[in-house]
């Protein structure tokens, strides 16, 4: 077995015990990237030299007998919207093509402190706006299960890199499903934590009230470690929850005996037969493991999608105003400041970003604010209240993750609304600020992985992981990565 094949916990244990060096582990990761990157295009930047220096420093730390950290020697990939000091951070946008942040995101600082080795920055839809990674200014990422298909998005590069075994752990950001949807399409575990559990400091904002960073891994246990390493209060993020970090690893064996599980039927009827069947089978599997399972209707969740597609663009229109050509990034000159602003933004932003900035600007405009932004916020409140009622009866909820298996490149680019529907099962958790995970659970009618979603109330990550671990046990191993490009199993 390769070192990477041991997963996050296995690698950290091997490096800590000096059975393997961080440099050996890194060499495997860099070799896999070298071999597969041409076909998949997961990365914008591979930081081989910096990573080698970090791995060497970690090995010295181990040699000195110091604690190398929770993620000792684990190669990690970061979505290219997390600031890395001294390394270009593009957000897949021409407007930030050459921008080098002078500071590290809190997540990056924490990962380095935990002994992780950052190997590179992964592809995404521009400014995380999209569900296929096709909205990248630097070309799409391909799904390792079938390179004619998308990996999902917006964190497609991170999802595909884990699915293809390039790295055992990668991070994405989830504003309306951008971790969970690609996790489902790539056959990996993807978690959107409770809003405020992981610091957003240094995450380039898309929609501030919805954005949350989370891990991609091949297993639930690795996910728990990946989340633990970055979670916890950060005084630099005012929306960070002031609560000590928790370890989830010890909870995974606890099972679901006696837990009350609700299957959200409103989503089941919205998705393809394969995806619906996977969700029903998952509910049954939890029942077989001792949970009390019931179907539940929460009709408000279906209003989440239109509310999301008002709130997220509204916040984005403000968050992206700063890319004006004055201080950093692309500048296209003009006869006056206004012309420079307009030309820079016209040239620097792709079509989908421009569309959302315009939608969001409109939604906040005088005379339209109440009908759009105000109304969307009222719907958001209804979704929150509906979840609150559901969680009086249930400990966790189960739902399909995506409406379909991975679709073909170009299949949905012509009509943005088709693309937006990919997020229908995902966005309610963002609106409510609740945690949710996508667990690979089945192979669909097209032979591609299908994920199932477990939703929990705020700070219910422990319960969420317990249910996810049971589902992982019940799922066929063939439904999850790693796979070679084309779907061939990796050793």
């Amino acid at each position, binding site marked *: 077995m390769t070192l990477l094949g041991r997963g996050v916990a296995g690698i950290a244990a091997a490096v800590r015990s000096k059975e393997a060096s961080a440099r050996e582990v890194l060499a495997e990761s860099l070799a896999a990237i070298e071999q597969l990157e041409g076909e998949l295009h997961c990365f914008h930047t591979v930081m081989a030299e910096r990573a080698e220096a970090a791995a060497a420093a970690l090995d010295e730390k181990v040699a000195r007998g110091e604690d190398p950290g929770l993620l000792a020697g684990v190669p990690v990939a970061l979505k290219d919207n997390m600031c890395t000091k001294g390394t270009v*951070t593009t957000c897949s946008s021409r407007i*930030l093509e050459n921008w080098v942040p002078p500071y590290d995101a809190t997540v990056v600082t924490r990962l380095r402190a935990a002994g992780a080795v950052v190997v590179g920055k992964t592809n995404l839809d521009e400014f995380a706006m999209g569900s296929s990674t096709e909205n990248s200014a630097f070309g799409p990422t391909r799904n390792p299960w079938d390179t004619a298909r998308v990996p999902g998005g917006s964190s497609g590069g991170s999802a595909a890199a884990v699915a293809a075994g390039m790295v055992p752990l990668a991070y994405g950001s989830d504003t309306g499903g951008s971790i969970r949807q690609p996790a489902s399409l790539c056959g990996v575990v993807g978690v959107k934590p409770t809003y405020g559990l992981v610091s957003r*400091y*240094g995450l380039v904002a898309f929609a*501030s009230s919805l954005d949350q960073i989370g891990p991609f891994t091949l297993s639930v246990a690795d996910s728990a470690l990946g989340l633990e390493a970055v979670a916890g209060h950060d005084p630099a993020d*005012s929306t960070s929850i002031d609560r000590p970090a928790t370890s989830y690893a010890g909870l995974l064996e606890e099972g679901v005996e006696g837990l009350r599980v609700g299957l959200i039927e409103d989503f089941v009827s919205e998705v393809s037969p394969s995806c619906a069947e996977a969700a029903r089978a998952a509910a049954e599997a939890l029942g077989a493991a001792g949970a009390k399972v019931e179907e539940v209707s929460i009709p408000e969740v279906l209003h989440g999608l239109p509310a999301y597609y008002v709130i997220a663009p509204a916040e984005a229109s403000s968050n992206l105003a*700063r890319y004006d050509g004055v201080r950093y990034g692309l500048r296209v000159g003009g006869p006056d400041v206004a012309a420079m602003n307009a030309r820079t933004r016209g040239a620097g932003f792709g079509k989908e970003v421009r569309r959302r900035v315009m939608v969001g*600007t409109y939604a906040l*405009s005088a005379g339209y604010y109440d009908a759009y932004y105000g109304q969307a916020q009222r719907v958001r409140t209804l979704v929150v209240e509906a979840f609150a009622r559901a969680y009086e009866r249930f400990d966790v909820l189960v739902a399909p993750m995506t409406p379909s298996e991975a679709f073909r490149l170009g299949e949905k680019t012509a009509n943005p609304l088709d693309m937006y529907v990919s997020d229908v099962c995902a966005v309610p958790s963002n609106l409510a600020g609740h945690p949710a995970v996508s667990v690979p659970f089945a192979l669909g009618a097209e032979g591609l992985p299908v994920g199932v979603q477990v939703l929990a109330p705020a700070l219910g990550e422990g319960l969420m992981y317990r249910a996810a671990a049971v589902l992982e046990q019940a799922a066929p191993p063939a439904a999850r990565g790693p796979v070679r490009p084309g779907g061939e199993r990796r050793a």
Partner: protein
Amino acid sequence: MPEGFDLVVGLEVHCELSTATKLFCACPNAFGSEPNTNVCPVCLGLPGSLPVLNERAVEFAIRIGRALNCEVRPAVFHRKNYFYPDMPKDYQITQYDEPTNVDGFLELRDGSRVGIVRAHIEEDTGKSTHLGGSGRIHGADHSLIDYNRAGVPLVEIVSAPDITSAAQAREYVSELRAVLVATGASDGRMEEGSLRVDANVSVRPAGAAELGTRCEIKNLNSLRSLVRAIEHEAARQAALVSAGGVVRQETRHWDEEAGVTHPLRSKEEAYDYRYFPEPDLVPLVPDAELIERAEAAIGLMPAARRERLVALVGEGDSPGLADQVQTAIELSLDQLVLDAVAAGAEPRLALARAANEAAAKAEGARALSATAFAELLGLESAGTLSATQSKQVLAVLIDEGGAPAEIARRLGFEALEGGEVESIIDEVVAANTAEWERYLAGDEKVAGFLLGQVMKASKGRANGKIVAAALAKRRG
């Protein structure tokens, strides 16, 4: 005010808070640093950066609110969206419909009250300098931007349209400045831009109930320009209305040199600021402990302090004395005067030196040792130092501290020995015999000339009073 019209003025005063750090980051809040040195990812609005509210700024804002008799309420920060190069994020974090302080008032010296609608917290922008061409943002060759000021905490104090004359507007700003300085939340320096005033001016036919259309006047950098601008604007609007015209709601720029206002941009084509709640911050709910701490930190209010100071120096009948009192109150120099008098200084002299000379270096003067100040005033009262010399010693004392007598010696102001004065007079008499004869013959016009010659020969070290006495004595 032009005949037949009533004037209605509301003032918006932006006050920089004198916190050690900025509103949302740990950068120094300092005036006069090298451009773009007090900056970080947060106040430069770099991608991924997030604001963290400065609790000290909140406390200062509450001090101001409570000193203006406002109600302190839970508040929500909003984003005010518009593109401007000196605003790093292209939105300003401010408070909108739920500000921290609401519904207060300020009582002026004449007992009239001006309502305070709100006093809210917001961040300042950077500072642009437009070079070449027009020298304004449109038509300049290029622009330089200093972001040191970006993110500096401000409180914007919005008055009700209760002000009815330019003089009252001046009085309001003067008293407000005194209140702000008294709270310890601001240094109140208009000349450095830490206090910035915009005036909303309208006129209406005398006695009419309905308000006229208002214009907002910007670029009022001193009390003098505030008064001139309001008077000019009132006259302009009155003339316009009298001639059957209509006042357009617009923002106008005060041109100090030309003494006129001219339109900046029209409100009809104004920005849509697209306010919405700032998702990067949580609602600001000041707890009772913070409000109590803020209230406890507020010093004695100007009205009470004015009473105390007047009791000391007397009412007087010259407007000069009242002005000195107000300056001392405004700049919080009254405590210095009180302490100096307690240490033996002559009250009116202490007030005069504080309000006229120390005021130029108010910040240093507030830290001045009252004993040293009293000692200096004693030297002046005794005639050991001339008024001019005393002022020079005071300047050094404020800048460097030390003992006044020692500073006087260092500056060469040591009073000349009687013999030295006499020998200088001898020299002057010998060199100016004709003038001396005329002086002896009783020509008083030449006395000043002789005195000047002696002062010149002593290189300013002689005390004028003593020389004059010596000359008179010699004439017999």
